[in-house]
């Protein structure tokens, strides 16, 4: 890696800490971002000659604060900082700043920065766009490409979202325990949404949306470092790692989805799977199950099976049952039915999903699963009707193609001569 690229990746990595601390100083997002930008410009000038500081985030905060204070002409003599070209040599000053950074407050700074992006009045895509812009530092152009909109449209959305959160008035005092838990849960949800925006992409959207998955993983790791003993944060990171590990196997060259049971498991990313399995193992020692841990545990069982036949469906059924209990939702029941089909057969699975019909009447996957179960039971005409409905509800050509392949295969199998 060239030195410039290496400095750039250090700047990207330091961004969440630096911007969030600068936000605490300036109490204003635009000032914090501008100060950070300026500090980065100076870093690019200074680091190649003077060497990279031991703590890049502390350096950037220090310099950013200086710059910001200059800019707003709020400087008072006693608060003056050493000029930034001296900082790399001033070990003492840097250590003092770094110690302040390690404090509890610094943790809450980053959480606050993430949390302000989760303003409940913002539509989810705006929450995600804001987090990518402010926390991850993606350019407006990069975000626009990920959401398949023009740069100017995205610029407008981000400006509107910023104006909205500017009025939100999130307190700067350290949060209480309950408030912190609430923020963590909102932030975790936003990170998972970001991941899903990338993960659910098909066809031509796969490549431009891939950075969403990478950035979501980066945010989850950041959150996990700040809160290393939160089992749900471990679960969230594990869930995304285990799903992302399948990325290369789950999209075919033409952009269509490859079903889990048809994926070439040699293409799964072993390092990500290892990391995900370790995290879910650690999380489960807390004996405090939550929705992310349960979903991660289910993903782990898939990841551990060397081929589809070895999948522990019985355990997956039990995990879905617990998830249903913790977070009742017709979609969870629908997913559970897929496991129930493997363990107890299509009749039991169909009985489980039939009561969901009124609530999932417009849901593509409901009709996909229903059709597959009916077909297994030999109820061809009803199956055909369900598949037709699924294709009509498909959100993308890839989803429709997925149902057609499902349909073709099941028809082929059921046409095979019976012994």
């Amino acid at each position, binding site marked *: *890696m060239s030195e410039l690229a290496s400095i750039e*990746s250090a700047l990207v*990595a330091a961004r969440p800490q630096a911007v969030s601390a600068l936000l605490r100083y300036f109490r204003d997002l635009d000032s914090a971002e501008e100060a950070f930008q300026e500090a980065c410009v100076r870093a690019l000038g200074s680091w190649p000659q003077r060497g990279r500081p031991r703590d890049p985030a502390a350096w950037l905060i220090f310099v950013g604060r200086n710059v910001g204070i200059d800019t707003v002409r709020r400087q008072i003599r006693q608060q003056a900082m050493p000029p930034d070209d001296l900082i790399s040599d001033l070990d003492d000053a840097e250590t003092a700043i770094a110690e302040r950074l390690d404090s509890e407050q610094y943790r809450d700074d980053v959480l606050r920065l993430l949390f302000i992006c989760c303003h409940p009045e913002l539509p989810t895509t705006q929450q995600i766009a804001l987090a990518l812009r402010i926390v991850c530092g993606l350019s407006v152009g990069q975000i626009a490409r990920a959401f398949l909109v023009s740069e100017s449209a995205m610029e407008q959305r981000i400006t509107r979202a910023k104006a909205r959160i500017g009025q939100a008035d999130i307190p700067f005092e350290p949060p209480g325990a309950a408030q912190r838990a609430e923020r963590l849960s909102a932030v975790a949800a936003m990170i998972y949404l970001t991941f899903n925006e990338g993960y659910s992409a098909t066809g031509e959207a796969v490549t431009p949306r891939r950075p969403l998955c*990478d950035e979501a993983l*980066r945010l989850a*790791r950041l959150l996990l470092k700040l809160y290393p003993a939160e089992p749900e944060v471990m679960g969230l990171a594990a869930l995304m790692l285990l799903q992302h590990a399948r990325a290369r196997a789950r999209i075919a060259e033409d952009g269509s989805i490859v079903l889990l049971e048809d994926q070439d498991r040699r293409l799964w990313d072993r390092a990500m799977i290892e*990391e995900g399995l370790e995290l879910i193992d650690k999380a489960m020692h807390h004996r405090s199950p939550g929705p992310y841990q349960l979903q991660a545990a289910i993903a782990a069982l898939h990841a551990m099976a060397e081929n589809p036949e070895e999948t522990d469906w019985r355990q997956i059924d039990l995990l879905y049952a617990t998830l249903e209990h913790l977070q009742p939702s017709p979609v969870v029941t629908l997913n559970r039915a897929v496991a129930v089909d493997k363990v107890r057969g299509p009749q039991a699975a169909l009985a489980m999903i039939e009561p969901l019909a009124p609530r999932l009447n417009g849901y593509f996957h409901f009709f996909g699963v229903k059709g597959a179960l009916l077909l297994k039971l030999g109820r061809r005409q009803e199956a055909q009707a369900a598949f037709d409905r699924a294709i009509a509800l498909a959100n993308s050509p890839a989803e429709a193609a997925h149902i057609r392949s499902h349909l073709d295969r099941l028809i082929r199998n059921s046409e095979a001569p019976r012994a």
Partner: protein
Amino acid sequence: MLYAILCYHFEDVVTSWTQEEDDAVMERLGVIHQKLRSDGKLGPAVRLLPTTTATTLKKDREAPLVIDGPFAETKEQLLGFYVIDGESLDEVVGIARDFARANPGGSYEIRPVSLYLPGSL
């Protein structure tokens, strides 16, 4: 003399590498590994998963306490280590310099080994 080279790096930076960047670093390191191996100087080498997967057992009390996270919160994290058979500290520092060119950023801590158990893996 056996020396351990403990590899410290900014974990945030390393985990932000794209697959291509990671592969490029590993390829450059691989050249050095190959040379050390053919010189009979390369012992076991380990790359660790991120510190977020770490668990720490505090044994300064009668019933050890198991906590999540790495032992120490440091600016740079211990991400792996090598065991090297070197003639002298100078030689091992030279090897560490080669590693540094292949993988800049962070620090290497060189520590002589006092007991070496090859294990049974």
